[in-house]
């Protein structure tokens, strides 16, 4: 991004001293109020004194007040410059207060034994959770499953690319096909898991896919009994939902390729197969990488289908990290351990994604 403003505005703000002082007072005053309310709350929690607060709501309201005053104060103090800050500041405050703060809070929880149903509340237990995690075969099993699930993206990508090519060809009823292909993405994964995962794959002996499999010669089709079959089924359902997403990104990329390039290849005597590999595919590389990276990000959040259909079974074969932590919380309501698992997951994701992005950057650079 360029150094200076893209939009040059010349303003001669003359902000009076009083206004500036008022702005400062506003920010600091509301900040002090927030601190005061927070302290009072804490004092009540510790049993030092009672202010009759039923919960932490007052602190939340004080925080909202402070945030508003901070935004307003920007305009009061900095004039025109403050008005520009006002574009980004609300979103930034929102994101910071909703991610950074809970993350820091999560760090504290992660190293404690905290059962929400237990009246004793939080107990700091040092590295016990880490030790438990290292010895937890189901967690690492779920982690391994994630690798398989992510590997499935390559197949999804191939299918999505083929579909995008077909949609990009000169066809009739393009609008119909586009809408039809898009629909799976719109449906809620929970409904999908019922529609496909249960009603089409479970009803014996009449589920349509079961019947199809039987006509194709599979004696006794069952989709959730063997670990690999179950994993494949989950993969396919997830693919069904998300292939349209990749397809649309790739289609957008295909449409931005000038037609002349393919025509030139044809004139030079390349058959369609070669033209694809020598012209289209290399040109599509940056888009493909973006699509795959975004898809991986979405895949790492996969949970709905697993929770709704198999809840991890058989024997944890279909568990994703998210669904595993979800069950871990549901079954034992241990917040501390679950948070540690999630934190470790986050760290692994960040490392893996950074590495992938670095790698992608090297590959995606147009070759000359």
């Amino acid at each position, binding site marked *: *991004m360029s*150094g200076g*403003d893209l*939009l040059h505005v010349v303003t001669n703000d003359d902000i009076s001293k009083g206004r500036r002082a008022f702005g400062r007072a506003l920010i600091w005053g509301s900040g002090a109020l927030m601190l005061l309310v927070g302290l009072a709350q804490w004092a009540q929690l510790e049993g030092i004194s009672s202010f009759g607060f*039923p*919960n932490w*709501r007052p602190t939340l309201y004080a925080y909202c007040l402070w945030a508003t005053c901070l935004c307003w104060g920007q305009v009061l103090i900095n004039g025109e410059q403050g008005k*520009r*800050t*006002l*574009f*980004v500041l609300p*979103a*930034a405050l929102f*994101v910071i207060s*909703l*991610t950074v703060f809970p*993350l820091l*809070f999560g760090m504290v929880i992660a190293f404690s034994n905290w059962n*929400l149903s237990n009246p004793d509340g939080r107990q700091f237990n040092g590295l016990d959770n880490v030790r438990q995690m290292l010895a937890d075969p189901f967690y690492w099993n779920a982690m391994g499953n994630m690798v398989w699930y992510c590997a499935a993206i390559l197949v999804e990508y191939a299918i999505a690319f*083929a*579909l995008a090519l*077909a949609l990009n060809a000169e*066809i009739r009823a393009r609008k119909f096909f*586009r*809408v*039809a*292909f898009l*629909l799976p993405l*719109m449906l*809620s*994964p*929970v*409904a999908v898991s019922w*529609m496909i995962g249960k*009603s*089409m794959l479970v009803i014996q002996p*009449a589920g*349509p896919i079961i*019947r199809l499999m039987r006509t194709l010669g599979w004696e006794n089709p069952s989709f959730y009994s063997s670990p690999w079959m179950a994993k494949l089924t989950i993969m396919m359902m997830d693919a069904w939902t998300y292939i349209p*997403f990749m397809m*649309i*990104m790739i*289609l957008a990329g295909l449409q931005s390729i000038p037609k002349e390039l393919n025509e030139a290849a044809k004139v030079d005597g390349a058959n*369609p197969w070669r033209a694809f590999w020598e012209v289209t595919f290399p040109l599509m590389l*940056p888009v493909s990488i973006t699509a795959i990276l975004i898809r991986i*990000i979405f895949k790492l*959040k996969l949970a709905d289908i697993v*929770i*709704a259909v198999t809840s991890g079974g058989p024997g944890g074969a279909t568990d994703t990290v*998210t669904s595993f*932590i*979800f069950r871990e919380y549901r079954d034992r309501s241990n*917040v501390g351990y*679950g948070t540690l698992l*999630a934190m470790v*997951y*986050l760290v692994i*994701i960040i490392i893996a*994604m950074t590495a992938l992005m670095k790698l992608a950057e090297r590959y995606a650079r147009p070759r000359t």
Partner: protein
Amino acid sequence: MTQVFHDAPVDRAFRPEWHTSRLVVYAVLLIWAVICLFPIYWTLTTSFKIAPNVMKGDMIPWVDYQPKWLGWRALGLSPDTIFTESTVRAEFFKRFTNSVIVSVVSSCLAVILGSLAAYGLSRFSFKFLWMRNSDISFFFLSQLILPPVVLALPFLVLYKELALLDTRVGLILLYTLSVLPIVIWIMRDQFSSIPTELEEAALVDGLSIWGAFATIILPIALPGMAAAFILSLVLTWNEYFFAALLTSTYSNTLPVMVASQTGSQGISWWSMAALSFAAILPLIIIGIFLERFIIKGMAAGAVK
């Protein structure tokens, strides 16, 4: 009339190949269209079946079986029950309203916050501590990587303390957070394609920067905002994980209701089918009529 000009034999030989390639393309498209549409069709038809039809696996209404309102009656939405009292229908509409309120409000919030931020980042240079514009953009977009499960348990505890558990406000806050990066992604692309001369002209004419934004830029960026809004709407409508964790009785959304019905009461396929179909119907309608915007939204950023 005799033909005077013929194609060269080479060109004529080319035709069959062209036809086969056509055939392959249409075959691929049709097969995939069936794969996409069949589950929806199956759900719709199952909702009109009764037990023997389900067990026999009848496919086509009026040919294989006679459609019955059984599934919809269980939901209180069949013609003969629609005007009578029905607890299930009341429940369904409660969940439905929850879903509508939560998804619409959080999408609106995300679009407002996100477009403002994206506009600011595309026009001015900011400096906050060590962070410059590109760092701030990256900070926003990096939220996309954050898996929901990391925030889920801390939020559970925080919401418990704040008495926000099982409230719509709590869900709205989290949903806004989860779609904000996507909105910023789309809107950044949108704003950077609008030339700055437009605002400069407006500023010369005496509008303030916010005035210029509201009167000049906003109308131009409206299609992009619509795309971002609809995409957020779809994502928040379908969200299940947070809703399952953070709500229990009062502010459940539709996906939670669908999921909770799956396990219990010895699956009655027809009513589940009716429920699922009712839950996805709004999205199917959006998909059919606003497909243009969704594709636009998702294609943004794919092509620079």
